[in-house]
């Protein structure tokens, strides 16, 4: 009986396993394989092995390290802001008020739009001459003339972070809200009756109990931010000040047609992201075991 169930299970899983092998496992293996060759995209079947040369080429390229630094800054700042803002908004939307369901749905709007569309809308709002933001800042007296938020090299990474926070905070809110809903209401009632002040309730009840949900949300968002491609690509085009690791790897691969170096860059990205993932997961585990 058990044996038969196992066989049925594998039969049901077969299409998934075949599909994932074709779109994930095999391409990943080939990518690592190409990293050790000097293949070019126009004729990928003709190549010879060059050992670690491609990895060294990428490592010696200051543009690559610039892209890594940008990605790290982007991830660190945007995920931190999203977490704090997301937690705040989640606390707010956790309370009972009229139209709560509708509000929770409405905040999904930035998240459900294509990143390209969000990028274009903000590009328009942040335009140096005709943008609403500059206009408002001038009217309020903060500025004398409009700032080119999306063209100025020193501002571009900040602008990208700002837009990303707008786009992905809703996702953070949803995950943290789901965590808050798991906290039993009785705990708060007990604390309130015993006269525990509100800030202390937040600090010693809500925060520790919502921590696992926040941890998972941070993990997902971090891994998502580390692979960011479209926002920077649309807003910053070829500006190296906002180039991410993904853009660098794709540039080598498609732009320069260099399959070997491009694959090596992708493999670096994979290793870096993998390392960070392991780090965060073990931190979360540690947290859970001590709590």
């Amino acid at each position: 009986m058990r044996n038969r169930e196992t066989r049925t299970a594998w039969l049901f899983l077969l299409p998934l396993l075949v599909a994932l092998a074709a779109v994930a496992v095999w391409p990943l293996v080939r990518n690592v394989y190409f990293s050790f060759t000097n293949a070019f995209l126009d004729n990928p079947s003709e190549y010879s092995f060059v050992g670690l040369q491609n990895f060294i080429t990428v490592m010696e390229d200051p543009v690559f390290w610039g892209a890594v630094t940008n990605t790290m800054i982007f991830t660190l700042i945007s995920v931190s802001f999203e977490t704090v803002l997301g937690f705040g908004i989640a606390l707010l939307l956790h309370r009972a008020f009229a139209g709560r369901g509708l509000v929770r749905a409405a905040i999904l709007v930035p998240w459900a739009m294509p990143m390209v569309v969000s990028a274009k809308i903000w590009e328009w709002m942040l335009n140096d001459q005709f943008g609403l933001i500059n206009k408002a800042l001038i009217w309020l007296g903060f500025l004398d003339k409009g700032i080119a938020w999306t063209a100025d090299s020193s501002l571009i990474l900040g602008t990208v972070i700002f837009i990303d926070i707008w786009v992905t905070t809703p996702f953070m809110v949803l995950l943290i809200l789901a965590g808050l809903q798991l906290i039993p209401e009785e705990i708060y009632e007990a604390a309130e009756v015993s006269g525990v002040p509100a800030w202390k309730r937040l600090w010693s009840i809500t925060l520790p109990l919502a921590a696992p949900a926040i941890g998972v949300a941070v993990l997902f968002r971090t891994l998502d931010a580390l692979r960011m491609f479209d926002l920077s690509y649309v807003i910053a085009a070829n500006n190296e000040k906002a180039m991410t690791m993904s853009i660098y790897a794709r540039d080598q691969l498609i732009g320069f047609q260099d399959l070997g170096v491009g694959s090596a860059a992708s493999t670096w990205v994979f290793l870096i992201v993998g390392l960070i993932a392991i780090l965060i997961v073990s931190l979360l585990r540690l947290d859970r075991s001590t709590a």
Partner: protein
Amino acid sequence: MTQTSDRYSNRTYRRLKALKRIGLYAGVTLVLIYMLFPYYWAIISSTKTRESLYSFSLVPSLDFSNYISLFNNPIFMGAIVNSAIIAISSSVLSLVISLLAAYALGRLHFKLSRIILICVLMISVFPQVVVLSGMFEVIGWLGFYNRPAALIFSYLLLILPFTTWVLTSFIRDLPVELEEAALIDGCSRMRILTHVLLPLMGPAIASTGLLAFILAWNEFLFALTFILTDENRTVPVAIGLLTGSSRYEYPFGQIMAASVTVTLPLLILVLIFQRKIVAGLTSGAVKG
């Protein structure tokens, strides 16, 4: 919370409570403005032309010439058709494959189920760029390059892990009793899935399908890389590449019209399926 506070009835307490209430609504209003205003501004801008586009009036001027020129743009309309075909095909394909898998992972007992779920989750978070060169080769072998099939195929990487994870948790939430009765009657597992569980999963499948559709509809990196010519482009890339004849003639009005056109249907669907979508999005995170 309200139940306990009913016991207090002095005036200051009530006043404090009213103040808190005002603060709550003010906060919610601020959040709504932050989240929705940019989209509202895009809608307004899309109905303005040249001169009025640069005035800052907050009411729409109801001039639809941007939309008319957009709908007469064959590349953009072609992109909408391409995107729709690609997103629908890859979502349906993913739903079928992952529904089968989700039944095995959610209901059948076998050793490796947990490990497979974790592997699926890992695939969903790794960077797309990591498979780019290998995917390029596979797509070449299949003869899909510069065809919609290239994207239908490669989007399985984005969608399958997600739909598998969500449907598995939905299936786990269904009561087992119905199924056990059918099993005793000698139903096959496949028949149980299609005749017992499937009828119960309508809303779950609709919302999961919608999320899958959104993932495919919004994708940019693969669409930019595997499609070469304008007539095969998808919507995000078409909008990303929409430029005017010169730097000073950047067609903001038209870009805003395009943005509104490709998002409005999605947003309406998201609002309709809101409850289920939230359940789907958070199911993995909360239970994982």
